């Protein structure tokens, strides 16, 4: 069985000169086939840290991460860039790039030293533009895009990177409800039709329940994972999010605010 992603006894956090600041530990999870996964948890619980660790932007404190049966520390940065692509929360610094140029940068780990694109690169970019439906804006400047368009462009860039795994850190944070749903639909489509494993860190509980195949839950001292249905059945969402002002109704799969 060719496992896409396997995390073993992982501890994540920050390394300072004197000590390690562990944010979360004992993370175990395996992904065997392409899925849409939502990573849920409160602010500051370590969702972004986990995504950064999976993309090797941050060091593993303890434990192991395997991508396609190979530990990520054994990947060179170029090799890893062909397995994992990211969409970050930060907006890129202001520049004069066009949408097309930005998406084309997603191919740079495949191109030669000067970045010359082959027909294959051009086709991958065209495909990424097609599935994210941004053909109409491909010659626009990045600076002119709305937040919704911008997110689609960044997803297209990740698609151009042609990786089995895409990590997205709160991709719908600044979007209106229509754009939120549209992005989730798009990501769902990518996981089913393009066989991508997509991991989204999110606070959109309702959308996550509706669209995700699997949920990963992070809390102070626990990491839980499972398919969305089981997670709901076993009351794990209540444990994670229920307070006096928020409750979860299992029957209607709705969060209720009081």
């Amino acid at each position, binding site marked *: 069985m060719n496992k896409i992603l396997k995390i073993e006894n992982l501890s994540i956090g920050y390394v300072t000169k004197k000590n390690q600041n562990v944010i979360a530990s004992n993370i175990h999870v395996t992904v065997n086939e392409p899925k849409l996964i939502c990573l849920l948890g409160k602010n500051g619980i370590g969702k972004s840290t986990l995504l950064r660790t999976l993309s090797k932007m941050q060091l593993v404190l303890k434990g192991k991460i395997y991508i396609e049966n190979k530990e990520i520390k054994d990947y060179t940065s170029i090799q890893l860039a062909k397995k*994992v692509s*990211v969409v*970050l929360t930060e907006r890129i*610094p202001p520049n004069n790039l066009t949408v097309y140029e930005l998406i084309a*940068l997603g191919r740079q780990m495949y191109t030669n030293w*000067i970045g010359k694109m082959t027909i294959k690169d051009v086709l991958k970019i065209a495909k990424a533009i097609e599935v994210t439906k941004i053909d109409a804006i491909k*010659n626009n400047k990045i600076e002119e895009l709305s937040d919704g368009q911008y997110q689609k462009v960044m997803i297209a860039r990740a698609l151009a990177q042609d990786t089995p795994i895409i990590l997205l850190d709160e991709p719908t944070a600044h979007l209106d409800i229509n754009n939120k749903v549209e992005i989730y639909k798009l990501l769902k489509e990518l996981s089913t039709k393009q066989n991508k494993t997509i991991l989204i860190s999110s606070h959109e509980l309702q959308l996550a329940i509706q669209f995700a195949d699997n949920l990963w839950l992070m809390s102070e001292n626990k990491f839980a994972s499972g398919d969305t249905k089981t997670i709901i059945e076993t009351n794990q969402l209540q444990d994670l999010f229920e307070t006096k002002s928020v409750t979860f109704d299992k029957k209607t799969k709705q969060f209720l605010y009081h």
Partner: protein
Amino acid sequence: MRENTVLILIKTNYTLYIILLIIALLLFSILNISLGSVNIPFKEVVQSLLGNEDMKQTSYYIIRDYRVPKAITAMLVGSGLSVSGLLMQTLFRNPLAGPFVLGISSGASLGVALLVLGTSFLGANIAAIAFSNYGLAIASSLGAFIVLLAVMIVAQKVRNTMSILIIGLMFGSITSAIISVLAYFSSAEQLQQYLFWSFGSLGNLSWNELILFLIIYILGMLLVVILIKPLNTLLLGENYAKSMGVNIKKTRNITLIATALLTGIITAFSGPIAFVGLAVPHIAKILFKTSNHKILLPVTLIIGAIVMLISDIIAQIPNSEYTLPINAITSLFGAPLVIWLLIRKQKVIL
């Protein structure tokens, strides 16, 4: 189909503009060589350039040994500083970064200041060497090299690229403080000598010096070519660049070395020439409305060379005996341009 035509159109436009720029560069270099304190008829200028020695001896020597090396120096200085400025602006993602943020010009100034202002403590023999061309070049290279080395060593210890910018500025403050102290204890004559160096000059190079200049310049530019691809990726910020397999530390170091080579050699031979390196990349970005370094780098290089040729023409005040300090000319143009940029564009773009 439509997409292809649009792409081709953009491409040909860029090529067309670059060809126009190259033509402008040629015209301005001929104009630069034609004008000077001595009035030489254009026909003689052309004949000298074509290597016809039959003509009036003095004109020939003025053109061959003075004006042509000066024009070449102007082009190397302008293009080298502008390209370095572009590198620094992209690396630090700061539109106000320039070629001298690494402390190179302050280091060179310190070297020259120590030599010129400090010679009162030395014997007359050393003083004689000190005021020669080579003495100044060596002192400024040493000074630039030592300060740059200090900045690079500290830079290896900080992970944040932005910190390097501030560290460079701090080293600049320290060196200018030392220069102030030295100046306070110096004679008027020494101060004048130092001041003249700090005005910058393009006209003092012999062919031998020029060849050394050219070799280092080409080395620096070769590194710049390697940097085109990672610099484009860095436009998305360090985290995205990392996720796309760019080795940030390596890119940073190559960029620092290329900038050091280019600005180091330029400052050694021509003094601390201000503002070109900051202003020209912005001119290129406004004219070409692109952030793609494949286009931006050659364009910045050519515009830098043109700007320096024009500055030199103005500094010479054609047909007069007077020469204005080149550094004053570049700043007189550079400063208003930067102010205008900030007023006109609400957002300064990388």
